[in-house]
């Protein structure tokens, strides 16, 4: 390894900086071209620029960013038939030799990428949460106070869209990328550069979305309904570009994950013995790969509408708002299962550890998740029950929507079966798992009311809906995320945040969360529509209680972040090698995990949940130190 580092390698040390410079250059070029070279006959009375300028500017700035990060070196090299990168280069790219700098440049090590994801997800989560705090503060009174009608809608849009970005990668991003390759016994993803790309699309997406406040904001919320989106000011463009980036990230990571899981499993590991979490990631990846392109198509049309003055979504021009609603929700409904299915997988992955039981009904659990995946493609029109679109189809969508509660119910059966007669260990992650099941149960039952057309006529587009999906996403996925953070940090960082205070934190977040959203469920039943800054006076008491609880929720989430930073970043409390005494493969490899995971690929796999026999899942061959003490 004494060969002098290549130029590309020297440059990529400064990857992030170069990326920012590239982004600026890209934006300037794109903006100039878009503003002056593209024929454009409206919106010119805006000193901030025109839609083509902003759109092209953002698009090229992302290209510039990635180029600066060094994503284009390899493909361009291939174009000219350059040699494949040397072993050293690949090892360097993989982050060999460690060091903190790995986390700030393009790295193909799935473990580094997992941690990068974790940080980015938490950033999205807490910035979005701050938005929620502002929204609740505004809703203390029935008429505008801290925000005005304009900034309030932008606030709603930012909160929802950021949270959607967060949720669509919250679990598959950090834990999927970090643990799936280890769990299936491979040293790397099928396409490591692609994996790096899927992460490095996130920061630009987040920043571009936030930049909307400089462009007048957007008033459509995260659903971006047309033709209102056609009507919006320049702020809409940042929503479109950001969402397109997230769509690409979801789709590409889906393809990459599927390819890895299907073709790079260790010998002796059939699909039927994969850890349940890998199964959930597989299902999710199929959803992402097959659903995201619909979003890309919709966004493309919207971009054409805004920059090229086509009329895809403008009725008077021959288009239709229903077109956007259909395409968007065809992506949007699988999207919500992209959120929760990995959460199911993680929870079922952790349950056996704390019950010291094999996972009860592994096969039905897999079947359940696959069933959810299949059904999620044929339910999207339940978002359009009152839209006046194809009334005769409503019974079918009502049926398919209610049908989806069957595979979801299976997850509960599996949980009950695993807990049955088990002496459960009430560790902090277990508490969060309990919270997950409680909240998701409420989320599921509120969903039944929305799937039934007659009752949906009262509840549709009300705060009932809002509370419903917060129960599934925040109460479900985010609770699973918190559990997983506490559970896996010892593995990912060698440090632990498991303290007494964390138990209090759980109860705080659990109670305040339910307080907030039970208030909001009742507000919705009493007839408060979503996304309004002014509401009927008789709804104020419930809104106040929601806000008060929401503050508590915000504080307890902040407390979680505080504990995380204090214990892991500052005090750096060292964790036991396998604090939960898990038999999972990921806990058998040493901590920190070697750059290439295994010195030998383990074989002879059994289901990783044989807690009754205590037999670990994998055999690491003769004399592998990682194996001792398991």
């Amino acid at each position: 390894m004494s060969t002098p580092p290549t130029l590309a390698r020297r440059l990529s040390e400064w990857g992030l900086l170069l990326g920012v410079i590239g982004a600026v250059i890209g934006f300037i070029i794109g903006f100039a071209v878009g503003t002056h070279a593209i024929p454009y006959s409206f919106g010119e009375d805006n000193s901030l620029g025109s839609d083509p300028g902003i759109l092209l500017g953002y698009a090229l700035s992302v290209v510039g960013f990635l180029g600066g990060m060094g994503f284009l070196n390899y493909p361009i090299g291939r174009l000219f038939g350059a040699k494949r990168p040397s072993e050293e280069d690949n090892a360097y790219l993989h982050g060999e030799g460690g060091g903190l700098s790995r986390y700030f440049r393009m790295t193909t090590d799935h473990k580094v990428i997992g941690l990068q994801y974790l940080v980015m997800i938490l950033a999205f989560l807490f910035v979005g949460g701050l938005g929620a705090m502002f929204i609740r503060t505004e809703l203390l009174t029935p008429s505008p106070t801290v925000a005005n009608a304009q900034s309030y809608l932008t606030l709603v849009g930012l909160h929802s869209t950021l949270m959607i970005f967060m949720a669509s990668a919250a679990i598959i991003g950090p834990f999927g990328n970090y643990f799936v390759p280890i769990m299936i016994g491979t040293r790397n993803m099928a396409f490591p550069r692609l994996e790096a790309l899927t992460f490095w699309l996130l920061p630009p997406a987040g920043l571009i979305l936030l930049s909307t406040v400089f462009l007048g904001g957007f008033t459509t919320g995260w659903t971006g309904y047309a033709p209102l989106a056609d009507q919006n000011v320049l702020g809409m463009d940042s929503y479109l570009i950001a969402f397109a980036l997230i769509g690409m990230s979801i789709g590409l990571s889906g393809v990459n994950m599927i390819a890895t899981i299907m073709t790079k499993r260790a010998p002796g590991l059939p699909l039927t013995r994969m850890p349940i979490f890998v199964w959930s990631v597989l299902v999710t990846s199929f959803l992402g790969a097959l659903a995201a392109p619909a979003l890309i198509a919709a966004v493309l049309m919207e971009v054409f509408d805004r920059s090229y003055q086509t009329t895809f979504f403008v009725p008077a021009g021959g288009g239709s708002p229903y077109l956007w609603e259909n395409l968007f929700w065809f992506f949007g409904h699988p999207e919500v299962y992209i959120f929760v299915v990995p959460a199911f997988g993680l929870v079922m992955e952790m349950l056996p550890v704390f019950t010291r039981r094999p996972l009860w009904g592994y096969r039905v659990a897999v079947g359940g998740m696959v069933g959810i995946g299949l059904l999620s493609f044929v339910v999207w029109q339940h978002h359009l029950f009152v839209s006046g679109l194809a009334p005769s189809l409503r019974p079918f969508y009502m049926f398919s929507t209610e049908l989806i509660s069957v595979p979801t119910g299976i997850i509960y059966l599996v949980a009950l079966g695993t807990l049955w007669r088990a002496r459960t260990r009430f560790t902090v992650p277990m508490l969060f798992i309990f919270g997950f099941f409680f909240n998701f149960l409420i989320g599921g039952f509120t969903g039944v009311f929305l799937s039934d057309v007659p009752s949906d006529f009262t509840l549709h587009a009300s705060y009932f809906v809002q509370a419903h999906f917060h129960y599934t996403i925040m109460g479900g996925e985010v609770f699973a995320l918190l559990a997983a953070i506490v559970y896996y940090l010892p593995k990912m960082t060698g440090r632990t945040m498991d303290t007494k205070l964390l138990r209090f934190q759980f109860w705080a977040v659990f109670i305040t969360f339910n307080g907030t959203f039970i208030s909001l469920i009742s507000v919705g039943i009493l007839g408060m529509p979503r996304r309004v800054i002014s509401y009927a006076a008789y709804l104020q008491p419930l809104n106040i209680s929601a806000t008060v609880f929401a503050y508590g929720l915000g504080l307890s989430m902040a407390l979680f972040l505080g504990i995380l930073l204090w214990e892991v970043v500052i005090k750096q409390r060292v964790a036991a090698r396998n604090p939960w005494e898990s038999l999972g493969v990921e806990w058998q490899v040493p901590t920190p995990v070697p750059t290439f995971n295994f010195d030998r690929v383990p074989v002879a796999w059994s289901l990783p949940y044989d807690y009754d026999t205590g037999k670990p899942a994998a055999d690491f061959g003769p004399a592998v130190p990682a194996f001792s003490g398991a």
Partner: protein
Amino acid sequence: MRSRIWLLVGGVVVFGVLVGFFVTRFLNPVPPQIAATTTSNTLQGRPVVDFNLTTVAAVGTAGQGNGEHPNWVGYLPTTYLKVPAGSVVHMTIDQEDGQTGLRNEYFGLVRGTINDQMTVDGKVMGALDPSLAAHTFTIPDLGVSVPLEGVADNAPANAMIVVQFNFVVPNKPGLFRWQCFVPCAAGTLYGNGGPMQTLGYMAGELQVG
């Protein structure tokens, strides 16, 4: 360890500064609000207060956005109005903008003003030919809606039409939005984007009390 703490504190401070910037600059930029000029005379036993607004096709640098959208149509000097509770507002609007035509002809009707009337260049009217309208001054929650006739295209430069009307504001303090119902935001979809959806141009708030 100390260095890490300082790093954390620094991060928190930076984040706090960013949030503060957002709150002060974007969350609710306090607009310059103009109060009605009180007069001595009364109407229906209520004190009369005067307002004088001007509608222009392009606000230039005078608009709310400090010249951010010089070519946007708008009300001048501002659209944030303040009147004492329970008074009669005597509104005078110098209409300098051209004719656009209403999307919904119904708003050609004068409603909610005293006697459901307005005075256009001295003559009393109860309705306006919708195709002549340049803007409307409408406070939906008070049921007040007055169409503003546009200056004819062949009219001499800086010609204007003076529209006057009186309406009663409630005795209870409150914040009422008001807007224009003419699709006057040229170049935006249905003429309802841009200035129509940006406070300070064709959208405003009437503070009572």
